């Protein structure tokens, strides 16, 4: 006997057995007339997927709930402002499809306002789409790749006006070209990583590098990533089991501005169930072949995903609790949109950003970062007496699961890494905090070192 509660104060799935405490009504499921609990006028949607909240909202209210979370995230974190040029990372999966859809709808609204306004003061932000072809890393994908790309292309075409550029890049583009040599180099690099999980993670880092490259080479100043609550919950656990507790809080915020092109996560507060239901509702095709063929089944990342799925069965709000706990960890200074001297940002926007402390001073760089994963380094991890610069520069997790264990192989491994990762190492090697600080304050110093007491 299902006891659904219609009280607006009730959280989903949490009402069973508590009806005496907060006085909500018990509704007999067998009643013939059931209405959406929000608008009270339409018939509620039943997704029949065994998930929570099924049969409470009508299609429109459900959709507006999810879109509402997206929009709230965007505005409260200044993710997208009128002068921005936004690149949406699109994998073809459900999450990024929803992200793309919502960003498009936001853009359409902005265009409508622009055309309706008299003074045309607020420009409409630009949107582009990027798709990374990983078939060099996962040969099983190559067969279906051209079809997948066609599907991506037609999807992007259907989302206009306003028109959006599509950038299809291969993962080996991180090496500067998309040639056979680049492909070979990628294969060699991945083969030299013996740890299965390390290989998967290295590929993720390379994928991010390739997205950053597309974004900065094409004038985008924001990268939208469709990570949802569920994906972040898995990340919290994988980071924990890999000893990455220090850098974890950097990865799970709404904004990650460590990168040249800051990353924003507008779907961070939406759960996987909402996303799949929305895709079902709107009839989005997902590139299932691309998604499924991608993942080998033997590493830690998959073990954690299965574990989270198990926990979700036991309690459907577990993912949210995990992310909520991790959200209590202290974020980093770069988990906000960086302040840039951008005169084309409208004054009203600038004032708002300043008022709510949504930006930080981009010149402040107090953290050192791992050249491979870009994770902030914990002071206690550094070992300055290491003979190899790459080893010394990396975090302990990358040292273990990505770098080769033989010290003699480190040089060769370093030569296979993309230039962007290695150039950071040289910088780190020279990093001397005393010199660095002195550089910053030298204008104010009156005496030379030798003369100072």
């Amino acid at each position, binding site marked *: 006997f299902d006891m659904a509660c219609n009280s607006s104060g009730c959280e989903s799935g949490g009402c069973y057995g508590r009806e005496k405490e907060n006085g909500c009504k018990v509704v007999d499921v067998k009643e013939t007339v059931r209405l959406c609990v929000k608008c009270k006028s339409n018939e509620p949607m039943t997704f029949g997927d065994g998930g929570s909240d099924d049969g409470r909202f009508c299609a429109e209210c459900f959709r507006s709930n999810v879109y509402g979370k997206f929009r709230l995230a965007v505005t409260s974190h200044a993710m997208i402002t009128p002068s921005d040029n936004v690149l949406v990372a699109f994998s073809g999966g459900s999450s990024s499809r929803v992200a793309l859809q919502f960003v498009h709808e936001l853009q359409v609204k902005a265009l409508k306002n622009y055309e309706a306004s008299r003074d045309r003061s607020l420009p409409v932000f630009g949107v582009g789409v990027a798709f990374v072809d990983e078939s060099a890393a996962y040969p099983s994908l190559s067969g279906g790749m051209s079809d997948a790309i066609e599907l991506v292309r037609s999807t992007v075409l259907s989302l206009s006006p306003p028109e959006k550029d599509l950038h299809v890049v291969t993962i080996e583009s991180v090496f500067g070209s998309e040639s056979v040599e680049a492909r070979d180099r990628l294969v060699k690099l991945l083969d030299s990583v013996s*740890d299965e999980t390390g290989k998967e993670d290295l590929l993720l880092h390379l994928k991010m590098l390739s997205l950053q490259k597309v974004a900065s080479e094409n004038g985008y100043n924001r990268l939208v990533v469709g990570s949802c609550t569920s994906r972040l919950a898995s990340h*919290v*656990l994988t980071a924990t089991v*890999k*000893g990455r*507790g220090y850098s974890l*809080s950097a990865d799970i915020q709404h904004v990650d501005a460590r990168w040249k092109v800051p990353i924003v996560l507008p779907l961070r507060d939406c759960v996987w169930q909402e996303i799949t239901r929305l895709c079902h509702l709107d009839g989005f095709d997902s590139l299932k072949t691309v998604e499924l063929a991608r993942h080998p089944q*033997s590493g830690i990342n998959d073990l954690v995903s299965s574990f989270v799925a198990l*926990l979700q069965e036991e309690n459907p709000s577990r993912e949210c609790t995990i992310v909520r706990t991790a959200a209590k960890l*202290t974020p980093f200074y770069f988990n906000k949109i960086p302040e840039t001297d951008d005169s084309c940002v409208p004054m009203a926007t600038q004032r708002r950003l300043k008022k709510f402390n949504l930006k930080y001073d981009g010149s402040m760089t107090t953290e050192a970062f791992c050249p491979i994963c870009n994770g902030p380094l914990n002071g206690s991890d550094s070992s300055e007496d290491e003979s190899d610069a790459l080893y010394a520069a990396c975090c302990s997790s990358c040292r273990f699961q990505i770098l080769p264990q033989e010290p003699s192989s480190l040089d060769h491994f370093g030569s296979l890494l993309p230039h962007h990762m290695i150039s950071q190492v040289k910088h780190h090697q020279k990093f001397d905090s005393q010199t660095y600080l002195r550089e910053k304050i030298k204008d104010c110093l009156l005496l030379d070192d030798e003369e100072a007491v």
Partner: protein
Amino acid sequence: MEKGEAKSKKPPRLCCICNERRPVLKRAKTLQQICRECFYEEEIHQAIVKNRLFKSGERVAIGASGGKDSTVLAYVLSELNRRHSYGLDLFLLSIDEGITGYRDDSLETVKRNELQYGLPLQILSYKDLYGWTMDDIVKMIGLKNNCTFCGVFRRQALDRGAALLKVDKLVTGHNADDIAETVLLNILRGDIARLSRCTSITTGEDGPIPRCKPFKYTYEKEIVMYAYFKKLDYFSTECIYSPNAYRGFAREFIKDLERLRPRAILDIIKSGEDFRIATTTKMPEQGTCERCGYISSQKWCKACVLLDGLNRGLPKMGIGRARGGGVNGGDHKKETTVKTLESKQCGSLDF
């Protein structure tokens, strides 16, 4: 493989630590080959020295359940106490929760340990302290939140026992697997304050009875191997009421994880130590229980709240998020105590 031939071709491997004796096993953590003698007594000694766990002349109570962790702990500590002249006065402290077919059997093991290791034993029972055995409690509340009751009661029982013995410190056999499980549990359950405390090797330092966990970096597998090689006498059955504990999820996951990557257990602990948690979120306000004088962050300590519920036939009292930020179910005994001062104690026990 022709072992004879291989032996004559190159010298046999020696223990990595002493380089004298033949190795008999591989460390679970590092896959190093070591001899029986060196096997990890020295590593425990290093952990004790490095973390400054004890001072000469201290009276130390070992939380002894008769299980492998506490038996090995008692054995290793008394051995190292002798070998390295720690100068400690060691005691065994055991808690009888009143679980027939489990605790009564394991207590026999502890009584044997008392004789085998020559350490004086003190036993305290839930029946004497609280008027309820776990058997009675489970009869009343069933098998869902029983671990909450047991954990809360045991913590207080250990503190009272320690006071009775007039010891300066309590040591428990929590191993790396336990602590890793606790880190995961606290993430899953949203307890950021506990998350920040649960990886400390010593806790409760500004209270009357500090506790430490010398086995913080020792894998459960290694403790089992040690007990096996040293032929130690211990009781190896799981608590009969435990199968439903939420901790079971974390434990299964960690077993699978260890198979894939052995060092992951230590990596979890490292993550727990490195989490960026603001110091302001760490400690709840310290106070004392109005009813019994035990340390508490609320008006009544958790044990009194739970007891009151039991005595009044309201077993759900104190379970869940109902009042004042209380504990949410789960296995309490592995979590650290709230630091505070204690005033007078009820009953016949003196502080």
